[in-house]
């Protein structure tokens, strides 16, 4: 274990200091992270009980609500850092902004999603054996393939990064700003999606394609691919702005 005397003299990135920063945040985050782990597991247990008692029809309303709740947990996970109390102490912390960013980004983009989705999914699939209804029966008009999944993941990351940007770019009303930035990203991506959809429709019409799945799929993949690119750019932009906001934050 490296001593704090040595750590305080080096301005290079050190894993020891990253761990110290994580430990600094942990007392405040511990309870909330535990809740993010327990609540999805409880939801999964409730879902299994309902489906086993009332059949697969009961899956849709409840499963949908729980899915939205899980996604909400992930998208608004930056709220973990939204408190204003102790902000001065946090900014004076003898750690590099990069080291703080590693902890913040890891929590929002890796640890929280894993805690929300992985244990509950594994529990549902292998222990409770919840008969998850296939997604294409839930939304039969949507084509489910790799591009769709990538697009879904990327849009979630954009919302999460935007929410984090809102939290980090402000020192007061940080919860409100986080929600506002998240919703703004949602509306912006929705608008881009709308434009993409209209273009797709026109392309189909001008090329004289019917709605047979075989002919639509290449265009669908093309438009969704465009959505993926737009989302990826949006994600990189939001992460870059968040990173700047963390470095330049003043009280």
């Amino acid at each position, binding site marked *: 274990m490296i*001593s*704090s*005397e040595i*750590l*305080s*003299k*080096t*301005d290079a990135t050190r894993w020891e*200091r990253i761990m*110290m920063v994580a*430990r*600094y945040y*942990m*007392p*405040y985050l511990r309870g909330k992270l535990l809740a993010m782990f327990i609540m999805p597991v409880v939801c999964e247990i409730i879902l299994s009980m309902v489906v086993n008692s009332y059949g697969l029809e009961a899956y849709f309303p409840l499963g949908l609500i729980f899915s939205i709740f899980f996604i909400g947990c992930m998208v608004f996970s930056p709220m973990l850092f939204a*408190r204003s*109390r*102790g902000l*001065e*102490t*946090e*900014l*004076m*912390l*003898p*750690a*590099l*902004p990069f080291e703080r960013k590693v902890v913040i980004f890891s929590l929002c983009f890796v640890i929280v999603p894993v805690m929300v989705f992985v244990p509950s999914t594994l529990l549902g699939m292998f222990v409770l054996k919840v008969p998850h209804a296939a997604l294409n029966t839930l939304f039969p008009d949507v084509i489910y393939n790799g591009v769709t999944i990538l697009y879904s993941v990327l849009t979630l990351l954009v919302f999460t990064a935007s929410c984090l940007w809102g939290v980090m770019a402000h020192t007061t009303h940080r919860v409100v700003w986080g929600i506002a930035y998240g919703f703004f990203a949602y509306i912006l991506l929705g608008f881009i999606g709308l434009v993409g959809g209209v273009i797709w429709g026109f392309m189909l019409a001008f090329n004289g394609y019917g709605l047979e799945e075989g002919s639509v799929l290449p265009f669908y993949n093309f438009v969704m691919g465009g959505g993926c690119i737009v989302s990826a750019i949006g994600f990189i932009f939001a992460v870059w702005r968040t990173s700047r906001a963390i470095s*330049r934050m*003043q*009280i």
Partner: protein
Amino acid sequence: MILDIKDLWYKYPGKHADTALKGISAVVGPGLHLLLGENGAGKTTSLHIMAGLRFPSAGSCTLDGCPTGSRLPSVSSHIFMTGVNMEFPAASISEMARIHAPFYPHFDAFALRDNLAAFGLDADAPLQNMSTGNRQKAKVAYALALKTDILLLDEPANGLDIESRHALQKMMAAHVGPEQTVIVSTHSIRDLENLYDGVIDLHDGRLNYAMTVDDILEHVYFDVSSVAPEDALYSRQCLGRCHSICPNGSGDESNIDFELLYLAARNNKEQLLKCLDR
């Protein structure tokens, strides 16, 4: 370590925002310094810049040549600030010592224990349940135990009872080392008046003077008599006695009266600064 402030300007963000600091320059060395100034003079803002919590609009604030706003661990591990409106993130002081103190290489756990005992506080007591005064005591006790080279205290005695103010004075005398620079921004001048080595006086975002007490006493003389001396720069009556500040032409020794100095700088600024060679 030397805190070097050069032509420091700070304007709050926003189109119509005030300019809080207007070209301050000072070199602050080890010792206990009193930061004086009326409300809105820029005391807290200047402390924030020294602590790296705000970035200067122009000019610089460096610690041994490195900008405090760089927030590099090699710089920020030497600086700590606490104030009345600054909350600690941890639930208790013992938790602060566990999660925050490891960043500061000179943290003294025994000093923390002694400081808390002097204030009659329990390290495990939840900060949120404490009264404003007790929370303030806990913060000051912790800040002193960090033993940073630069310690910035914004109104440390605010909310403290009379006994605790005496305890604070003893604590400062016992725990502030000769190599440490402590800047105390306060309106309660008398709480630590025997301990100050220097004075920094701000007025409307500008620096009036930043001098050691010895330098000030070399230039001016504090007189208490029934009648104000003819050459008095400023006088005021108190309990039938006349307290005056006069030019010290003959090298007489006197005790500094910070309050009188402060009032003189506001009522006869030009003469006083001329007398102080500023």
